[in-house]
């Protein structure tokens, strides 16, 4: 009885490396261990001022915008698309929210006010973000443009649009309820993390409790066959871009709330590349069809842990991009089956050579 159970566990362990999440999770665990060595106390979680506190919580909190964007990106990539305009949409959403709230500091007022109710400002920002997504989606589906080219337009133009909205200035927000989005806590957890988690759960439920998962995989694998089978692939593709921009809009709110300002030029800078990287690290195929939502979240955490690790180890800021690139490269190698096979083969050859030499000596 016991041996049967042990066998089953042994069997499970042996098959573990074949699980698509095994290597992403291993990479994350290795990074966390290194971080704990570089900065003792990295893994310690405490309770301060009625909420969880610690470097780990900080990583989770700061990873929230990237997680959000990467979740949207996962769906787009699974449908054979690509959205490189998410960084610009982050900036647009931040700008819309900041302008609607208004950026004047009145020292005489007892409490800072917003020009419009906070809910309206948020809805406005997210609405504009979704319009951006609709634009991308229609360019891809109706105009038949390559996704990378179609979204390149908004990637470039979006920064300009964000600066038009803010009139070329960096708008500072003084309305404190808005700060709650990026800095607040709910039930001891960072509010931004809760937004990201709820989004992930919503997407997970949509993929598993509705036919969305089946449709996404069939469109991603064979769009022509999916259309012949009656799947409304164009509609679903447009919706994926709209949703991806919505997640970018949410990320824009979190980021601008975090820094209490909207900077059309720098908000969400290079976010599209980090999001694509997070999706790739999580094991989603860029060719479409095969994707992993959980993998994407792990991928986003890997990138944020890397950033935290670089800051914690005191790497000078001038070279931290280079260090990040090297570490990302190492993580990619760890996840590559070809590379691992090469390493194992090399190790076996060495061992064989050593034992042969040993035999000859004796």
């Amino acid at each position, binding site marked *: 009885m016991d041996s049967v159970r042990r066998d089953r566990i042994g069997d499970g362990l042996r098959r573990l490396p074949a699980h698509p999440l095994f290597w992403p999770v291993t990479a994350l665990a290795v990074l966390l261990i290194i971080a704990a060595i570089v900065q003792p106390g990295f893994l310690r979680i405490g309770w301060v001022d009625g909420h969880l506190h610690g470097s780990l919580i900080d990583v989770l909190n700061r990873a929230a915008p990237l997680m959000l964007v990467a979740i949207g990106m996962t769906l787009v990539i699974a449908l054979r698309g690509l959205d490189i305009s998410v960084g610009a949409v982050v900036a647009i959403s931040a700008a819309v929210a900041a302008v609607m709230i208004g950026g004047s500091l009145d020292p005489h007022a007892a409490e800072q006010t917003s020009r419009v109710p906070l809910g309206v400002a948020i809805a406005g920002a997210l609405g504009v973000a979704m319009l951006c997504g609709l634009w991308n989606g229609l360019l891809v589906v109706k105009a038949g443009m390559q996704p990378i080219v179609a979204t390149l337009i908004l990637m470039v133009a979006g920064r300009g649009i964000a600066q038009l909205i803010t009139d070329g200035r960096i708008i500072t927000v003084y309305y404190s309820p808005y700060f709650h989005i990026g800095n607040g806590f709910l039930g001891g957890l960072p509010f931004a993390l809760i937004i990201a988690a709820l989004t992930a759960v919503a997407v997970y439920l949509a993929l598993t409790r509705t036919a969305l998962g089946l449709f996404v995989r069939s469109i991603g694998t*064979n769009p022509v066959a999916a259309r012949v089978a*009656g799947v409304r692939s164009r509609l679903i593709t447009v919706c994926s871009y709209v949703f991806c921009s919505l997640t970018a809009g949410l990320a824009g709110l979190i980021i601008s709330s975090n820094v209490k300002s909207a900077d059309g030029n720098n908000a969400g800078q290079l976010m599209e590349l980090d999001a694509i990287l997070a999706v790739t690290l999580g094991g989603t195929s860029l060719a479409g069809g095969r994707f992993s939502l959980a993998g994407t979240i792990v991928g986003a955490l890997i990138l944020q842990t890397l950033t935290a690790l670089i800051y914690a180890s005191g790497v000078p800021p001038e070279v931290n991009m280079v260090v990040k690139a090297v570490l990302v490269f190492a993580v990619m190698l760890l996840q590559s089956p070809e590379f691992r096979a090469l390493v194992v083969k090399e190790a076996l050859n060495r061992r064989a050579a050593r034992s042969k030499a040993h035999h000859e000596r004796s």
Partner: protein
Amino acid sequence: MRALDDVELCLRAGEVHALMGQNGAGKSTLIKVLTGVCAPEAGSIELEGQPIQPTSPLHAQRLGISTVYQEVNLCPNLTVAENLFAGRYPRRAWWRGGGINWSAVNREARRVLTALQVDVEVTRLLATYPVAIQQMVAIARATNISARVLILDEPTSSLDADEVQQLFAVLDRLRRQGMAILFVTHFLDQVYAISDRVTVLRNGRFVGEYVARELSREALITAMVGREIAPVTNAVTTQGQAAKVTSAPVLQAKAIGRKGQLQPTDIELNRGEILGVAGLLGSGRTELARLLFGLDPADSGEIGVNGKRGLLRSPADAIAQGLALCPEERKTEGLVADLSVRENIVLALQARSGLVPHLSPEAQQRIAERLVAALGIKAASIDTPVGQLSGGNQQKVLLARWLATNPQLLILDEPTRGIDVAAKQEIMNEIVGLARDGMAVMFISAEIEEVVRLSDRIVVLRDRRKAGELPGGCGEQAVYELIARH
């Protein structure tokens, strides 16, 4: 299990040798061994008395064994001439820069293709020509590299009758030059038209080598299948004709057409009727199916389904009206290779109901298992990716997908292409059974003999327009006459 077991094959210079067998008989594996894709575990290969061991297709080619595969292995984004000479372009002399001599490339390409009587402009992109021409270019490329053995893996499956004749003329010329040609095909007629000898494989084993003109068709089929096959006829459905005509037609298309694809055409289908669509390649067969199903927008005419007028703007529209289409290209337009048999079967049913309600895994399993059993689909399990199934079983999965939606009108575009004789019979039996139960079926096939055998009524297409209609049981000759008449 062995893919090939103790198989022998003897090719003689100046002969066309047909290799026959059902799917899974080991034809592809044998070709892979001959061309160095796989190494044999036992046995030997000799070329002109010398033992050879090809290690890669390139090595085999250097030894003098060239292969043309069923799917064209050329680059559609290069010109015809570039495709012919890719990898071995004629160069200019070094004192003139040593670059590629493009005028020589094009001149040589023209010469090679003219010799094969293929009339194309060699500087145009390969993609601008139909698959048939691409196939001819692939053959030209293979024969131009001085081959002693030419292997053709189902070269005719996408050619129409004229082009097959053209190909056979080329093969005949090559045969007279002393080349040994191995010809793999599913078409019995073609075996007799061109081959000198036939080798038959079954389940990875050698059945026999025959001289083609001494082998009767019945004997050949029996050798391939291992049992005798009774031809399907649609005698029973024609008896129910009177009952069908009284009910209103399921589908009534008036003057539907699309510029460059199909001239305005009228089509009518009744309950329980099999309407055959016959015509040569390029006659508009597939285009008709695509227009009816809303895959391509029609720019004239209207379609009525059960009396409801209007055009079908998308496949989703057509499916909502009770239509179903098994497309001609099973792999690229039909199945989603990575998805399981179960998921492929429920896809259209789920797509019709939209995102919600979602069919539970249990419901999916029930539907899939019922249809797998009903159609006799052979798969390791219903969770096997459909790409791993044989051609015949893939076709049945596609059929199962549509049967799950319980359609009123089933359009089948070439449902029997590229599948083995036994699976063909099973699918044709299934079609007859469906019509008997009241479904309207539109049966499109390049094999006119099949259309004639199965249909209650036959629409003949010629040059993208309807040439006329014939009653069921009219005979192949009548169809050919209608196609040939001007």
